């Protein structure tokens, strides 16, 4: 929930944490929206809706605080479009390999050096790349990520760099100089 929450009032200081009340408030708003989707808007008046919202607020306060990140909503459609397109390609790619009589696989482990900072951007990146064609996040040690790829002969890094660039834009991190991979 926290990962995609918008907050426009926070300065883009990366180490700063949101105050607890603000995190709880945002989570409770999201919980109210979820309740309205599940139970219908009219059911927001029921005491159980308040119970759910209050419990969500409490749970978010109990969880460790993440870093406050400024979200750049204009990058969202691009990221979503890219993700939908590549994940459709990913599904078709793996389905084709599965039904092909000769099972065209060339599995390999590949290193990849991420530039995104730890926290929600990196989590989002690692989750999304497992749905991209032919890549699977296996392990992360510092900046070095180990990928499992279905086809070591294809250029997997290009797609990943594109995804990384788009996530960086979403979190307003693209003003950083594109530090070269070690």
């Amino acid at each position, binding site marked *: 929930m926290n990962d995609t929450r918008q907050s426009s009032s926070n300065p883009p200081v990366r180490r700063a944490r949101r105050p607890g009340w603000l995190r709880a408030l945002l989570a409770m708003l999201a919980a109210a929206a979820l309740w309205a989707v599940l139970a*219908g808007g009219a059911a927001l008046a029921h005491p159980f809706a308040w119970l759910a919202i209050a419990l969500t607020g409490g749970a978010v306060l109990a969880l460790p605080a993440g870093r406050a990140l400024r979200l750049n909503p204009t990058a969202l459609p691009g990221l979503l479009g890219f993700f939908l397109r590549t994940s459709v390609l990913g*599904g078709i790619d793996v389905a084709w*390999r599965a039904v092909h009589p000769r099972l065209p696989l060339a599995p390999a482990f590949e290193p990849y050096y991420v530039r995104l900072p730890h926290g929600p951007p990196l989590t989002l990146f690692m989750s999304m790349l497992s749905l991209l064609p032919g890549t699977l996040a296996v392990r992360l040690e510092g900046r070095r990520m180990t990928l499992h790829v279905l086809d070591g002969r294809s250029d997997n890094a290009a797609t990943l760099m594109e995804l990384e660039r788009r996530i960086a834009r979403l979190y307003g991190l693209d003003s950083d100089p594109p530090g070269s991979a070690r």
Partner: protein
Amino acid sequence: MIADLLTAVLVLAGLVFFAAGTLGLLRFPDVYTRLHALTKADNLGLGLVVLGLMPQADGPAMILKLVLIWVLVLAAGATAAHMVAQRTWTHGEFERRE
């Protein structure tokens, strides 16, 4: 009528991807490649099924519910695939081949 036809086509297409993912699960050689098959093919299959059910929904709340199901399965699937891959890396395959 057109909505029903759309539903039938999309749901059937989704089932084809589910079947392909299951085929991959059975045919692929090791844990990692099987994870590829399950996460990617089933994600697309479920996406198509959800898309196909949308014309049958009786309101925007139902459509949002369908999208929510897809997003949650996506998040859970990607997380689970990564966790299984990581565990396989550190502990080896669960089932040792004799």
